[in-house]
């Protein structure tokens, strides 16, 4: 199967030639640039990397949404996770994304240098393997990520229960995407013309997972990540803008189904319960997070371990909270590129490869 066709340069060039004028015409009719939000951080990266963003810059303002897991994780959660690293007899297992995120006073990187046992894993399965191999020590897996990632973490928890492991814990900071989008749509200050919805979250929740957004009649397209996908998705959002009755368009049907991944949904419902959760920038959003269900409480780091984290302190002047909501551009932050750089990040938006600040920093002249 030639999935690489979605990276085909010739097809991309043909489509660009034909689609961009139509998108520009729409902007001309409105008398301003179109304001479209790409919710997913991987989309933000793909737009900048492929140059699709620059191709559209005349007529489309792409606004990064709350789709970088590390960036939307609340500072209290980050501080708590880092505080676990100091517990004796403890191994922290984490995705690489978390390593450099600055807590209020320290980071996992610094804790590792100070002697903490912090291990980067590719998958929750590997974290579980570390727990099996170290029965005398406690392994805490740091669960960050959205609907895409949470089922794999849920699998590791269920497996730990089946095996009777008593030294595997998960700190769940997992989040649900639709509630954050709903909060954005309902914020009148936003004036967004449409949404590019995250393709891989939609794999799990399905097209139908966006029913709330649909009921708000927003132009919205679920899109893939290859250059052809990106261009076509923007074009289809513009087409949707023309309609008065809108439905969420599945522009990624090779991977996303109407009902999503039912096995994963059932597993999430078994292992987690939906909870109110704090987000960076948004504050507490109702029913927007995944807490570990009572039946799996033995694996819940929050329930099993009380560790006093240091008092939470945000970097002075850091605008990450506004950036994740798409309310401010990184360029509006006084720290950007001066006190705050990828080498010395002050907020998570500069740390994560898909944080808006690090992407603005990496791509030509802040036009990314």
């Amino acid at each position, binding site marked *: 199967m030639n999935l690489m066709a979605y990276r085909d340069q010739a097809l991309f060039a043909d489509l660009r030639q034909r689609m961009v004028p139509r998108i520009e015409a729409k902007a001309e009719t409105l008398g301003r640039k179109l304001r479209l939000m790409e919710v997913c951080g991987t989309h933000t990266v793909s737009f900048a990397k492929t140059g*699709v963003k620059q191709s559209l810059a005349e007529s489309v303002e792409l606004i990064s949404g709350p789709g970088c897991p590390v960036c939307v994780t609340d500072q209290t959660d980050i501080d708590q996770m880092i505080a676990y690293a100091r517990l004796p007899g403890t191994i922290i297992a984490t995705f690489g994304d978390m390593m450099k995120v600055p807590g209020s006073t320290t980071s996992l990187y610094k804790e590792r240098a100070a002697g903490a046992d912090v291990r980067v894993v590719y998958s929750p399965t590997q974290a579980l393997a570390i727990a099996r191999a170290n029965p005398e020590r406690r392994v805490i897996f740091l669960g960050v990520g959205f609907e895409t990632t949470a089922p794999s973490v849920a699998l590791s928890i269920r497996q730990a229960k089946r095996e009777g492991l008593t030294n595997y814990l998960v700190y769940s900071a997992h989040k649900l995407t639709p509630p954050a989008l709903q909060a954005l749509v309902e914020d009148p200050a936003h004036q967004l013309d449409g949404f590019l919805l995250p393709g891989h979250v939609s794999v799990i929740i399905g097209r139908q997972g966006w029913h709330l957004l649909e009921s708000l009649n927003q132009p919205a397209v679920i899109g893939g990540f290859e250059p052809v996908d990106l261009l076509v998705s923007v074009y289809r959002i513009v087409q949707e803008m023309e309609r008065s009755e809108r439905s969420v368009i599945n522009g990624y049907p090779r991977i996303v189904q109407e009902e999503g991944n039912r096995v994963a949904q059932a597993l999430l419902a078994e292992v987690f319960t939906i909870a109110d959760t704090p987000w960076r920038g948004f504050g507490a959003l109702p029913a927007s997070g995944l807490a570990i269900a009572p039946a799996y409480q033995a694996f819940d780091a929050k329930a099993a371990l009380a560790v006093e984290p240091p008092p939470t302190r945000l970097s002075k002047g850091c605008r990450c909270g506004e950036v994740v909501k798409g309310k401010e551009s990184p360029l509006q932050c006084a720290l950007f590129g001066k006190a705050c750089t990828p080498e010395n990040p002050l907020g998570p938006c500069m740390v994560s490869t898909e944080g808006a600040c690090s992407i603005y920093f990496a791509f*030509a002249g802040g036009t990314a």
Partner: protein
Amino acid sequence: MRILLAHGDGGALTHQLVTKLFRPAFADAALEAEGDSALLASQTGQMAVTTDSFVIDPLEFPGGDIGSLAVTGTVNDLAVSGAVPAYLTVGFIVEEGLELECLRRIVTSMAQTARAAGVRIVAGDTKVVEKGKGDGLFINTTGIGWVPESGRLGIGLIQPGDRVVINGPIAEHAVAVLSGRAGLQFAEPVQSDCAPLNRLIHAMLEQFRTIRFMRDPTRGGVATTLKEIALQTGFDIALEEALLPVRPVIRGALELLGLEPYYLANEGKVLIIVGPEEADRLVDFLRQQDQAMAGLIGQVTIGTGNLWLQTPFGGRRNLSLMAGAPLPRIC
């Protein structure tokens, strides 16, 4: 049999290690002389000296081991400076408990690599540290070479318009080393590119007068090496992503792990800054020297020390120095 603390105490076991393992493997008159120093013939011209310490997990990986790496790394550092490598010294810091057989394989591989590169290993030292205080084995190598034509190469000779050429595909070493840990297997061979480049570089320098500067993109990868050059010269360097040689199998591994090739280590690659008039001929020459994927990857322009990566879809990305080790990520 395993290495004991006594193998490093200067007594009978140390003597045994030297006479039974190191000396026969390295087979050099300077070692046979058993002096406290190697007494060596001098050569004319500028002397080049470099030192490097090697720390790697695992010690043995597809396509090489810490021993071949230690020789290669130091030989290549001399060669890219325009020197002809002549002598190496080697210091081993062994962790108590290392399999003697493993040490033997590594020493043998060092000796073979040195012979292939035409350099002599003329002095050595061994220490043993307690179990838990070392990662199996650390090696330090110091290299000495002579520069036949001083002033021939220098970062100050780089001019806007110069081209950037590389001798083959990138990120091969890093993926070979990572593959075991990450549980990766491959449909085609993936090996470290670990190889001494001194003969190749010597041949290039003889034929191409406009080579201005060379550097081997080891730790930090192509991006960090070129960014350093950009910062030091104050010029920009523009790379074409589509021209950067990366084998599909390597690209596949990196996408699976969430890593990018630009910051990953190479151990048999050289970046060459060459005048535009000779760039194409240099690429042809490299390809004839068994470097099939050699290519022109970018050029130097007037600028302010930026390293740009031009994507095939019209985007442009500013590559920084590597910030910390590359970590696999989920997003």
